[in-house]
């Protein structure tokens, strides 16, 4: 965990008092709604269909139990008793009253949580691998760099009014769990031939109505230079990014219009001219931040404790363990994913009671630490294997042991038309129906890894382009229709899915998905061939035939 010091805490409370003043000026009419809109967005407050929505940052997906309890408190005290975890390591509350927002922020500030730059045209929450610091084979903990970037991007005096939003993600593992290729800047930590730590820098990824996979503009930027290099990218973007059309304002469009080579040259030129402006991170500066991350005092534990051997006779436990428990870099420990995708539930939601329960379990079994992943699930990152049976029982009691992690019912979905004023169609009921269709965990296990992503409109908050199966809500003659793509992925081999045919009406979506899954089961080479690999091998045609032959 990163421990906020007096300076971090001071800055957060200064921001809360500034926002309190802004709300006061809005309520007194001193600020127009137009002016206030920009200011509230900079602090994570949207106006949705029914109420204000409040988005809180969980930088690089790390939470302490104390912080999770504070989120539960906000859900209970200021909202309707639950929160929604998003695809960018944020949590959203949907029913907040404007006049109470400053108090909610002040309560969160006490535990070092804020909502700065969780919306608006600025640098958003820096995200990272939810297994950072515990994944086997990781180069080093990417959260050190995430924290350096979090500080650097917070209330930046030059880049707080960018052409459009700007998202940075960092990974330090071979397998990319942070979806860096669909970010404005993706950073892949690696070592050069001399063993020095640095980053491959990718730019211009993003979904929305013009999806692009990020491209590499520099294969290696030394760690000490990462802030100045990011600054150079942002300066080019701030000056030359389009501001005439909101749909063409993301950096991906600038990169596309200039071409990656020309864009890279512009950045390189700006970076060279910048010279030493105090952004170079010397060893001591990096160590300063590193020193404020604390790590658990792991015990020396056996690889296979007796508790685990005994529990292996329980098939229900075993099914959960095989699905939701992952290898940890320290022997005797595991990473446990907590599915927020119960059958029939809205993906990514957690009640205040569940949050409190998770916080208690984190204290008991995970050194007080919780992680949030972009798949809208949570994780306990340091669970001793001997504690797995007890943890399973406790999770099961609060509905957090659904053994569907990475399976067909582990659906990523945006809030859709049930909440969002931008949406064309509903997302949550589609997800709920699909979880009922595939409710049999044995069947889901047989199908294997399959990511379904649902967005209620072209803004793609549910990342439908990169779902193995992507579902996009559109509006046709006043009715909800859904376009379906297959073969997308968000990992190190990121690519966009391909449309399989004409959009289908709301009532048919679940049938179509079932058809696609059945086609896959018939077409796959062997049980280990994942859905997405079958699509890659055969293309969309056999799936298209199956779906549209009878429609």
């Amino acid at each position, binding site marked *: 965990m990163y421990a906020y010091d007096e*300076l971090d805490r001071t*800055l957060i409370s*200064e921001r809360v008092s*500034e926002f309190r003043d802004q709300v006061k000026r809005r309520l007194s009419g001193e600020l127009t709604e137009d002016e206030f809109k920009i*200011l509230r967005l900079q602090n994570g407050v949207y106006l949705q269909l029914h109420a204000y929505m409040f988005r809180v940052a969980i930088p690089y997906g790390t939470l302490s139990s104390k912080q999770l309890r504070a989120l539960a408190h906000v859900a209970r005290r200021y909202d309707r008793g639950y929160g929604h975890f998003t695809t960018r390591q944020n949590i959203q509350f949907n029913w907040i009253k404007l006049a109470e927002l400053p108090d909610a922020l002040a309560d969160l500030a006490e535990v070092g949580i804020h909502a700065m730059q969780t919306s608006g*045209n600025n640098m958003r929450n820096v995200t990272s691998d939810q297994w950072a610091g515990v994944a086997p084979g990781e180069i080093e903990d990417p959260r050190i760099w995430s924290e350096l970037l979090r500080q650097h991007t917070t209330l930046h*005096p030059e880049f707080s*009014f960018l052409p459009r939003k700007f998202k940075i993600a960092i990974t330090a593992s071979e397998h990319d769990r942070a979806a860096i290729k669909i970010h404005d800047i993706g950073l892949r930590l690696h070592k050069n031939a001399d063993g020095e730590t640095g980053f491959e820098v990718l730019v211009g990824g993003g979904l929305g109505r013009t999806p692009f996979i990020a491209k590499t503009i520099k294969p290696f930027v030394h760690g000490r230079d990462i802030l100045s290099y990011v600054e150079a990218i942002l300066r080019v973007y701030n000056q030359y990014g389009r501001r005439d059309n909101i749909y063409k304002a993301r950096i991906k469009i600038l990169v596309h219009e200039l071409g990656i080579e020309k864009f890279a040259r512009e950045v390189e030129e700006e970076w060279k001219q*910048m010279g030493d402006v105090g*952004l170079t991170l010397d060893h001591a500066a990096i160590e300063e931040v590193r020193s404020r991350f604390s790590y658990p005092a792991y015990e020396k534990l056996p690889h296979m404790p007796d508790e685990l051997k005994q529990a292996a006779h329980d098939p229900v436990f075993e099914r959960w363990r095989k699905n939701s428990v992952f290898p940890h870099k320290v022997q005797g420990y595991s990473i446990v994913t907590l599915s927020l995708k119960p059958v029939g539930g809205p993906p990514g939601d957690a009640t205040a009671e569940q949050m409190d329960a998770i916080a208690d379990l984190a204290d008991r079994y995970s050194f007080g630490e919780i992680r949030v992943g972009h798949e809208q699930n949570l994780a306990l990152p340091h669970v001793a294997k001997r504690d797995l049976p007890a943890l399973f029982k406790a999770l099961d009691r609060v509905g957090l042991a659904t053994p569907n992690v990475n399976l067909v019912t582990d659906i990523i979905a945006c809030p859709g038309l049930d909440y969002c004023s931008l949406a064309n169609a509903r997302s949550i009921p589609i997800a709920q129906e699909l979880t009922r269709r595939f409710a049999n965990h044995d069947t889901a296990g047989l199908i294997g890894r399959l990511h379904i992503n649902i967005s209620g409109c072209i803004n793609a908050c549910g990342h439908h382009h990169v779902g193995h199966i992507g579902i996009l809500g559109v509006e046709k003659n006043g009715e909800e229709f859904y376009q379906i793509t297959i073969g997308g992925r968000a990992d190190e081999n990121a690519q966009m899915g391909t449309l399989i045919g004409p959009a289908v009406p709301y009532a048919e979506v679940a049938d179509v998905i079932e058809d696609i899954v059945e086609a896959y089961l018939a077409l796959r080479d062997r049980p280990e061939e994942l859905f997405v690999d079958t699509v890659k091998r055969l293309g969309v045609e056999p799936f298209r035939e199956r779906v549209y032959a009878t429609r």
Partner: protein
Amino acid sequence: MPLVKNGRITTDLFVGVADGAELPGDGAIMVTAERFLADPEALLRRAGKVGVIWPNNRDLDDLVPYLDRLAAVALVFPTFRDGRAYSQARLLRERHGYDGELRATGQVLRDQFVFMSRAGFDAFEVRKEADADAFAATMKRYTVFYQPTGDGRVTALNRRMLQRHSESAGQ
């Protein structure tokens, strides 16, 4: 529209001269980039200070040769959500060493004062009287800064390093 300069509301000594309008005989003038670039030498020879309003989509290269003879540069915020002039300001101050008046003009609200000041602005044409009155209080709102800029404020990281250094020296 009140002008805040050096931290307090003050009279604007610059007279705005429209393109094509006759120049006053003396006194400080503020002209557009087009007018200035049409004949910079003539304007700079004239008795009286010269300030230029520089649009936020125009490269600074054309302005840079004249910086040491200009008394003011006004950068434009057509709306406060358009942040291009922050980059221009930092480039003028930090890269080109401009040390004359750097004025923010356009939609300038109190909510931008800290950002603007950090980027190098020292004069503000403020839209609302109440915001101009609140200038001093607003500038005191923040005491912690994460990024180094040319304004000389000590960053959080540097404060931590200094503290660490003094702690270890005291042992």
